């Protein structure tokens, strides 16, 4: 479990990015952290892994404090940054040098994931394309079997088949003890993969809810004209009518559109907080 207690963070004390953020993240969920560029997604992840320190408040991950960066904590968490760092070694050398630091690393799974993601095993890692390097890092991170997996824009640089393969892999490695946390602004990549959504904008947490709750409370559909008498979170004119996100007062089933949800929540945060109260 990840617990934020009154977390305040800013690159300067005068301009705080997050102020008094309090929230709990439960095990056994795949979280999608959505936000615009510069909204503070990466900052939040870095605070969670301990490469940035809160100015005030605390973060606790399974009872451990990230800031101290103790080996016993770092063994249980893996962070994939948006850009990729790979040393000039082969995959086998990398596995021999880095895997011993992670006690739950599974070599068989690692090579299986590489195969599934179609990463070439020969040659040095720094000679691979950006997409191949990214897939390699994802395969290694998954094979480490850490309790918490944080990924910053994991689908950046992946081609379309790799994105599908990535979704399958994430689903296959998920279990009820794990937390997988992905930040992205490419919302469509996370559809059908995540079961909890967090939306941040300008350092504020606007939404923290499960997909099930969102589907219960909101209805996503295309209509000829915007409905009257219901709360409308978002409207967008399309070729075949108007796409709307409205309050689901009739208990209708509809397919979640993350992009429209995101636009609705960022444009209309007050209504979003009314529908999905935080804490």
């Amino acid at each position, binding site marked *: 479990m990840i617990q934020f207690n009154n977390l305040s963070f800013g690159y300067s004390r005068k301009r705080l990015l997050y102020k008094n953020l309090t929230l709990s993240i439960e095990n056994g969920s795949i979280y999608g952290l959505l936000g615009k560029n510069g909204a503070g997604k990466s900052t939040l992840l870095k605070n969670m892994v301990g490469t940035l320190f809160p100015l005030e408040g605390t973060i606790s991950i399974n009872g451990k404090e990230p800031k101290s960066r103790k080996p016993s904590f770092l063994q249980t968490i*893996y962070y994939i940054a948006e850009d990729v760092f790979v040393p*000039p070694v082969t995959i086998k050398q990398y596995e021999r040098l880095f895997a011993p630091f992670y006690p739950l690393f599974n070599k068989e799974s690692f090579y299986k994931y590489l195969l599934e993601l179609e990463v070439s095993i020969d040659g040095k890692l720094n000679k691979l394309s950006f997409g191949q390097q990214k897939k390699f890092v994802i395969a290694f991170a998954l094979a480490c079997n850490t309790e918490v997996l944080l990924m910053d824009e994991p689908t950046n640089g992946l081609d379309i088949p790799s994105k599908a393969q990535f979704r399958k892999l994430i689903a296959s490695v998920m279990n009820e003890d794990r937390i997988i946390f992905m930040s992205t602004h490419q919302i469509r990549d996370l559809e059908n993969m995540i079961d909890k959504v967090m939306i941040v904008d300008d350092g504020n947490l606007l939404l923290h809810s499960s997909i099930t709750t969102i589907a219960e409370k909101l209805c996503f559909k295309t209509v000829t004209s915007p409905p009257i008498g219901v709360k409308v979170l978002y409207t967008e004119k399309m070729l075949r009518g108007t796409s709307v996100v409205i309050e689901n007062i009739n208990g209708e089933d509809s397919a979640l559109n993350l992009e429209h949800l995101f636009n609705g929540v960022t444009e209309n945060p007050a209504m979003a907080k009314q529908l999905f109260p935080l804490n």
Partner: protein
Amino acid sequence: MNDTFNLTRFSLLLKKTVLERPVQLIGLMGLILCFTLILYSLVLYSIDYGSAQNISFIWGFIGGGTVLASFVFGYFNTNAGGSAYLTLPASALEKWLCSVLIAGIFFLVIFLSFYRVMDYIFVTAYHKGLDHTSPLYQRLYDHVYLYPLYQNNVVNKVYIIWANCAGVMLIGSLYFNRVAIVKVSLLVCVVLGCIYFLNLAVASALFSNIDVAFPFYTVLIKVRSEVGVIQLPQRAYQMSDIFINYILPATLWITAYIRLREKEI
């Protein structure tokens, strides 16, 4: 689990540190040794043995050691590189010790061993090339000798300057993420310039005809062509010595550890 130091984990970290970028690390060490060899040869060719030994040792040891020290924490050029380093499951003490071992102990042992072998080859070649029957043989033979790496005033000063420069570079590479060596060198030059002029101002206020006032040993008075040295009182001299030889380098190297613990990226 011991979160401060674990020998197995430290061995893994050391192995990883050396083998993950062997070309850079071993290549840089090779480059330093080559530079020293070339410098020795060039100065030997243009001046003589004593100068070749002094100049190559000073520049090879201080210059090479400083460059290597700027490299050992060189993970922070990119966000991903820095994050990967900081989140690797090893303690800050182990990561710091690993860098100290490479920039301090390994460099010291490899450089001094190489220097001794190189110097031995040059000196032996010189001695063998002498004419045994010449009346000047003994004098010429004694003129060139193996460079003493211990109890040698120049070498002792070089060790101290290296310990301070490498310490500054270790800290600097944890403050500046990109081109740390250039930024730290500029900063050191500015600081040394400020110290010099401050010392000159203080010395000029106390004495007239001050010529040079570099702290703490080189404060000179020049009257016409005569130059005199202003010496610190014995106790102050000893304290300066202890500060520069031990306290300052120890503080710098330990500060690098504290900075590593607090490093954010």
